[in-house]
């Protein structure tokens, strides 16, 4: 058991937690904004999958930076289906969301296999930025390790943290944020104020798609370094739950994503240490931890009143 508390293992544990948490952070942040605007994106998994595929292929043919941009663009493009069918035409958000996920699963597998089934290309390790001084601190530094740690991460991770701060500020302090919250809480009031409810929801959903696509791209480019059919493995649905439990608070999305990631990493470490606990219980750890943390500390938040409801002017 004592050999599990070495610097290398603890560093790998933190790195694993970040690897597992970042895709959830991006996707859940996007979903949080969309939910605040009244749009429930059950198709988040589909946005992530398309982002993962396009991000990987773009990075493979060009570079990592363009890969992430391509992933975000692909996620946003898929979310356009949600915009057209649910926001503009008022179709059921849950049904369309499920269709998007299934279609993305089939489409990405089909296209990827037609291109790469035999060659199975991989990307090398993503380049990281070491925070001067801090990256040399044992365990949290990670400067000289293969997967880094808190202070040695690829630029996309720092960009993600900046987006969290920017989104939280926008939601709380700007007219855009107010409009988004109104679109989810009282869309008729927003409409009466002369702001387009459909337009607001459209931009929120496109942002959600872009963030989920970015999360998917992180998964394929950095976390795995390759694309595999259904690589997301249900992470989109976990992100939806995280966004709901965070209930509109960007900081809680951040905390939830990394608590989940670190818990997942701890469950790996427990097994490696040979702790005599059933794997059934070990695999419950991330879910139980996140639910406990967010329910206990995030309980004063709430879900928007008009969540998943189409807006029709004048309808009661």
């Amino acid at each position, binding site marked *: 058991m004592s*050999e599990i508390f070495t610097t290398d293992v603890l560093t790998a544990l933190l790195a694993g937690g970040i690897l597992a948490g970042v895709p959830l952070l991006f996707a859940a942040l996007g979903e949080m904004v969309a939910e605040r605007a009244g749009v429930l994106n059950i198709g988040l998994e589909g946005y992530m999958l398309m982002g993962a595929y396009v991000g990987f292929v773009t990075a493979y043919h060009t570079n990592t930076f363009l890969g992430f941009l391509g992933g975000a663009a692909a996620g946003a493009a898929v979310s356009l*289906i949600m915009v057209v069918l649910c926001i503009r*035409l008022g179709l059921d958000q849950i049904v369309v969301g499920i269709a998007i996920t299934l279609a993305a*699963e089939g489409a990405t597998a089909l296209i990827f296999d037609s291109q790469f*089934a035999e060659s*199975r290309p991989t990307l090398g390790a993503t380049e990281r930025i070491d925070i001067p001084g801090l990256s040399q601190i044992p365990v949290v530094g990670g400067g000289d390790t293969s997967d880094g740690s808190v202070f040695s991460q690829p630029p996309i991770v720092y960009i993600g943290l900046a987006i969290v701060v920017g989104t939280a500020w926008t939601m709380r302090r700007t007219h855009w944020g107010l409009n988004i919250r109104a679109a989810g809480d009282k869309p008729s009031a927003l409409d009466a104020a002369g702001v387009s409810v459909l337009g607001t929801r459209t931009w929120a959903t496109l942002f959600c798609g872009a963030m989920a696509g970015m999360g998917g791209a992180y998964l394929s480019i950095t976390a795995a370094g390759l694309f595999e*059919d259904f690589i997301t493995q249900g992470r989109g649905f976990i992100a939806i739950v995280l966004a709901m439990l965070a209930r509109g608070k960007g900081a809680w999305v951040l905390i939830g994503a990394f608590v989940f990631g670190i818990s997942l990493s701890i469950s790996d470490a427990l*097994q490696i240490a040979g702790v005599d606990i059933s*794997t059934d219980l070990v695999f419950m750890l991330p879910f139980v931890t996140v639910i406990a943390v967010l329910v206990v500390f995030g309980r004063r938040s709430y879900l928007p009143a008009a969540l998943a409801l189409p807006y029709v002017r004048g309808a009661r």
Partner: protein
Amino acid sequence: MRRSFKHAALAVIVAGAVALTGCGSDSGSGDDTSGGSTSAPAVSIAKIGIAAPEKGNDYGWNQQGVDGAKAAAANLGAEIEVADGVGYDNVEPVLRRLAQQDSKLIIAQASGYNTVAPKVAAQFKVPTLVYDSPSATKAGEVADVETSSQQGAYLAGILAAKTTKTGTLGIVVSAADTNWFKMAGGFAAGAKSVKADVKFKMAQVGQAAYADSAGGKRVTAQVIAAGADIVFGMGDGASFGMLQAVETAKAPAGADKVYFIDVIGDKSPIDKKDVLLSSVLWDFTKVFEQAAADIGAGTFGSTGYEINVTNGISLLKTDLAPEDVWAEVDDAQAKIASGEIEVPLTPDQAAVDALIK
């Protein structure tokens, strides 16, 4: 205008649903290849059909099954019909179609088909092979294939224990899978047989994380950080992530490089960093040929089949395996075949834990 827009939107959904149906079912149908008659045994079987849940180019279970069926068909001078990428949700129509198209032997290449396959076999009276379901055996209709994969893993354990520099071996499995546990136990037993003090670091990616390549990479990286310089990985799609972790890992103290041992298929063509030390290969060809022979003799279904080191389980030899170590592997293989070495069977995690702790 708005009305026509709605119609267009509905058309998109319907088209999507149709496309999904296509993706989820028989994507590999029509892969007909006439087998070239070579040294065909005195068995006459016109056509072999195989249904596999994933695509037949996955460098793993499905590819080995499809390749084995094709090789058997070629050796027997039979036609082959491959239905791969079938999944698990809508298998019965695929098996029925294989039967209706005159397959004389159907291979249901997934234990997940064990409920449906015997039903179709009974309905169409077509001899059918299933996996890990001895109770389904029925004369003339259904025969069971069991894998003694732990025997190949035992050989991999010898190779790993003789090659490791840190004295710590990693075992990573993608799921709570009987075959993974059997091989994990065989690997541990083989390693201990030549190096009693070898240590193991074992972890499971998830309960059924077969395709979780990101999870496979994350867990493998932690196993390597815990000191393992050779990782025995079992994962289907997740194993690509394990391989990626090994390729990008910083070697633990005492080692200069980390190596990977794979299972079922041969990933040499995609091993760009020369880290693939070996693989426990499963070749089903001889088992399929034996099944065809039994059909000809009228004895199909009277007994089950076992794939082991004498008829299909082997260890992939790469340039990374030292010659002297390989001689020991060959020796152990001969002893397993003769019964001199009996590899322990560890069908669950508890049995594996008892060996590695």
